[in-house]
């Protein structure tokens, strides 16, 4: 059964410059406009220095979404900001790793570990 995709943005307590984006469900190209509308402003906000993707409930991403994540990472990097992955399940790690994103974006087993790594 298809799982409806969603994205929500939260503050990270104790980390003023960080935002946590919780991605869930099955994300394909049909969800890209929502993803862009929600995440692009984060890259443009001077106060945001780090973004953590909480992937606990993300069950599927296709190449279009991965392409957007890579593009979002590039935008953050240009603004000297950082992106982190937290709690990606085995299948999500599989595809992120295959396309090489885990080589450039740090990933953590828990959200707490990801937040603890923020400076």
């Amino acid at each position, binding site marked *: 059964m298809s799982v409806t995709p969603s994205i929500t943005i939260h503050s990270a307590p104790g980390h003023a410059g960080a935002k946590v984006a919780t991605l869930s469900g099955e994300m394909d190209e049909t969800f890209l406009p929502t993803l862009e509308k929600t995440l692009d402003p984060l890259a443009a906000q001077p106060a945001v220095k780090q973004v953590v993707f909480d992937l606990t409930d993300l069950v599927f991403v296709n190449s279009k979404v991965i392409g957007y994540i890579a593009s979002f990472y590039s935008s953050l990097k240009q603004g000297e900001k950082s992106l982190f992955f937290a709690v990606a399940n085995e299948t999500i790690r599989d*595809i992120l790793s295959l396309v090489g*994103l885990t080589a450039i974006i740090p990933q953590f087993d828990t959200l707490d570990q990801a937040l603890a790594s923020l400076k």
Partner: protein
Amino acid sequence: MILKKMPKQKIVQLTLPADLSYSAIVRQLAESFFEMHRFNHVWCHRLKLVVDELFMNAVKYGSSPDTGVVHLELTEDDAGMTFTIQDHGGGAQAISASELKALMQKNTENQDVARTSGRGLAIITHLWTDRLDIGDSEYGGVKVSFLKKKDKEALQPPPPKIAITPVSVPAAIPVSKPAALAAAGQRPAYRIQLQGEVDQYTIQEKSRAIEQTIAQLPDHSELALDFKDVTYVNSVFIGHVAAWFNQLNARDIRLKLAHASPEIKDIFDLVGLSQVIGID
């Protein structure tokens, strides 16, 4: 939607509107199909993603959005599993088979991780399929198919083997001297630990293994079939147990059932076997 099952090969054919809102249905169908053919969790997900990418590609580049359809086919044969998708061409961003081939080759060679546009489809089809064919479709557009072999790495592990372990043999009396055991009023005891479900798919293998084990048991011993890790047994298996009871009885081997769940006990009660076979 047309579902057709052919007699020789196992084939599922499906014609869908060229509309990305059908992606979830296509993914679900693909995952169920590969799962049904014993691909493991990791490979079901990988192949679902390959199918999703090819569907998206056919919809975007090979179809007219208002009237277009795409044709999907999933086949199982001796070579493995084959997925084929064909479009009618005519999309606003139409691409020919030779152009798609060239694009895939170019994107496979792209090493820039941060520029993944187009890399996804190229990489996953390159690394996760055993063969990818791109050609002209009989419908006028492009035909793309991939083969995934049913190799060991991609399939679920076979059902666990049944192990036989001697139990409850008094330490003072060696197993190799059954006469001594008999004199002490003891029988060499053995246990067969069953695991999982015993159903129409697993019964032949499990029954054969149990029969081979039974043939090796010494006469005048005791055998426990341990159902601790069994969640379901079907009626055919109950029939096998009755036959084994008779064979063992003729050799003075006591049969008992251990750790049977209430549901499994009920089945043995129902057929009357619990009257003659001890159930712990």
